[in-house]
């Protein structure tokens, strides 16, 4: 191999990882890399803020199932991606960040790492708790192996973000490069195959179960285990509830679908999960927003817990059968063993009961007063979009309404910040998802508060020709906080009123996007139909009542049994 510079080696290594697109913003410490990018086949998408680049890479990763790459320069560029990495970390998303760093040395030794040089930040120290892996290269020759390790670690086992920090002088330094296909990492050997004995125990429990139920988490989406999940659920006629991160892994138009559990889960899921006698929990970490108070969570059920991360077993909930393995292979194996022992179940008393409760709750569902409410809009939106359309959401009421009322059918079509709850995630994530799946319509369900946090990416979507639709559920409020102040702080609205600025339609137009304000459900339908045909991003501003609450709700500090249907 001929000698090449560190920057050339980086781009070559990224190509070998089949990277097609990088979301980033250049800067002083990245100049040599951007010079190589100039005539590379990797597409560079210039974000307007590094946080946007990181979220876009995350949206790309979630929609495609492959690593998403973002790039930022040293110092403020790098610190601006921190929120994006923390977000990816809590949602186990394989986002890879490449950051520039100041020189490791210079002739007069005034620009060394550790001397507080211009635009120097200790990004390794800063991102250690929020990345699965990070590393700083010390010489150009280390770059190919560092890239391979970073991708390997980020995308295998329980996925997660990783960061590679590249000092500027290693980008220009020349070296003989070796590009390894495989790397041996002694401290990293993720286990993907389930232990046969544990599978046997799980099968035994499921065979005896009278009221079995599945709780499917984000791990099912991550391991692309939806087909296996569906087959197993149908075999045993097991109702399936999803966690917030699990949404879209099971078709919600299926009779066995219960919807989400949790603080803003469906009444159905929150009720039935407490009646189950065996709970098969797959790819979930029993987070507090899902379980409510733990003392009241499935006290009588035997729990089988499948997770690829051993540290999640027994972290929050004590379980009866732990299985440390990949969701896909485990579900497949459980089904294979069950098929030998029973015929496909039909209408069991349990399934009939579930069906009965489902019908009752559906008939009682409250979609709000007035013509144009968020729940009604989301039901309407489902009719307007094809099954493969991708929904991204911001964070807050918009997100919880979307989770409750937009029925997802295909896996990986619901992209939302579950763990960190990052306002401003949805719009750049929608851009990333659209890049990953250019033929799918992508819609960001936004609130006016969240959208303001990353609205500058309108510039990215217009100039880079990445058309998405943003639906701003506009109550001129930080709505979820306002809801809590209404419910728990005597309606003392402290620091939540945003006022009616900006005019979102005009804001969109200022960027060269389409912008429209609608006043009825009918107008919304028309605007959405038009937006889906338009070749530029459209922002649809939808005024809604600032008094609308998201229900059902489990009040903070309460259990799922205390789910409140509405006021």
């Amino acid at each position, binding site marked *: 191999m001929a000698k090449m510079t560190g920057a050339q080696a980086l781009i070559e290594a990224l190509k070998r990882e089949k990277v097609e697109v990088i979301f980033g913003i250049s800067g002083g410490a990245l100049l040599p890399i951007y010079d190589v990018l100039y005539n590379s086949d990797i597409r560079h998408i210039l974000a307007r803020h590094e946080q946007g680049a990181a979220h876009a890479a995350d949206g790309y990763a979630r929609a495609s199932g492959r690593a998403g790459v973002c790039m930022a320069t040293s110092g403020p560029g790098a610190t601006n991606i921190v929120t994006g990495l923390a977000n990816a970390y809590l949602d186990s998303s394989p986002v890879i960040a490449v950051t520039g760093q100041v020189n490791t040395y210079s002739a007069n030794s005034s620009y060394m790492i550790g001397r507080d040089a211009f635009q120097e930040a200790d990004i390794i120290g800063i991102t*250690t*708790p929020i990345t*699965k892996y990070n590393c700083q290269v010390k010489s150009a020759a280390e770059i190919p192996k560092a890239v391979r390790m970073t991708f390997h670690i980020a995308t295998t086992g329980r996925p997660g973000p990783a960061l590679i920090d590249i000092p500027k002088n290693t980008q220009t330094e020349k070296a003989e490069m070796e590009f390894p296909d495989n790397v041996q*990492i*002694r*401290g*990293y050997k993720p286990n993907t195959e389930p232990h046969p004995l544990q599978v046997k125990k799980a099968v035994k429990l499921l065979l005896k179960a009278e009221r079995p139920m599945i709780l499917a988490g984000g791990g099912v989406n991550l391991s692309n285990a939806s087909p296996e999940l569906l087959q197993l659920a149908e075999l045993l006629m097991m109702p399936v509830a999803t966690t917030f991160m699990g949404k879209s892994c099971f078709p919600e138009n299926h009779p066995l679908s219960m919807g989400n559990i949790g603080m803003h889960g469906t009444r159905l899921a929150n009720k039935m999960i407490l009646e189950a006698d065996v709970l098969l929990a797959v790819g979930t970490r029993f987070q507090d927003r899902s379980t409510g108070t733990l003392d009241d969570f499935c006290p009588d059920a035997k729990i089988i817990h499948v997770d690829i991360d*051993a540290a999640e*077993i027994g*972290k929050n909930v004590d379980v009866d059968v732990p299985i440390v393995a990949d969701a896909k292979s485990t579900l497949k194996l459980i089904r294979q063993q069950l098929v030998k022992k029973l015929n496909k179940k039909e209408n069991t008393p349990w399934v009939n009961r579930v069906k009965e409760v489902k019908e009752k709750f559906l008939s009682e569902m409250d979609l709000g007063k007035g013509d144009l409410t968020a729940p009604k809009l989301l039901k309407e939106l489902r009719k307007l979009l094809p099954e493969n359309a991708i929904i991204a959401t911001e964070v807050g009421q918009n997100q919880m309404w979307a989770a409750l009322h937009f029925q997802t059918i295909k896996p990986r079509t619901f992209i939302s910040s579950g763990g960190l709850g990052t306002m401003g995630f949805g719009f750049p994530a929608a851009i990333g998802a659209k890049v990953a799946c250019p033929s799918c319509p992508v819609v960001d369900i936004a609130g006016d508060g969240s959208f303001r946090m990353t609205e500058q990416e309108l510039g990215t979507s217009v100039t880079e020709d990445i058309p998405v639709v943003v639906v701003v559920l506009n109550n001129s409020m930080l709505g979820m906080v306002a809801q809590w102040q209404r419910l728990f702080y005597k309606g003392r609205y402290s620091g939540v009123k945003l006022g009616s600025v900006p005019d979102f339609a005009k804001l969109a137009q200022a960027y060269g996007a389409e912008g429209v304000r609608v006043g009825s459900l009918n107008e919304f339908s028309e605007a959405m139909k038009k937006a889906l045909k338009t070749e530029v991003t459209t922002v649809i501003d939808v005024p809604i009542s600032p008094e609308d609450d998201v229900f059902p709700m489990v009040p903070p500090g309460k259990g799922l049994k205390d789910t409140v249907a509405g006021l």
Partner: protein
Amino acid sequence: MAQEHNHIISTIVEHKPGVLYNVSNLFRCRGFNIDSISVGPAEEVGLARMTIMVRGDDRTIEQVVKQLNKLIDVIKVTRLDPENIVTRELALIKVNAPSTKARSDIINYADIFRARVVDVSSESLMMEITGTSDKIDAFVSLMKPFGVKEVARTGITALSRGPKSVKVDE
């Protein structure tokens, strides 16, 4: 509340910059308490052994072990069985010794504890003592009436007894 105990965790880690930071940071951000930590090169070049004493109930310790295992640079984590280990700590203790009487008393005590005098000045003595933490505690408190000027302790290091070893599988 479940009962809290001291536990000793022996880990083999990559011997490179940043690993101690990764480990100590993990303890900090997950709210685990390190009682003591000692680090030094392990039997194989390129690897280090960290011996960590941590206080907590069984559930916490299980999480400590699992979370440590997740760190990429941590190769092996073992909880040592308290019934079946050798633990040692080393301490240097500087004591006031202004008179001949005090000096000879101190040296007598040191003999009993098998501590060694490693430095002498006209007003002070420095001793080196090795042993279990209890033994060192006892010796330090015995020295208190003379006036302890400085104590430096290494923290516990430990290995399990017998031929079995906490080694890296290849």
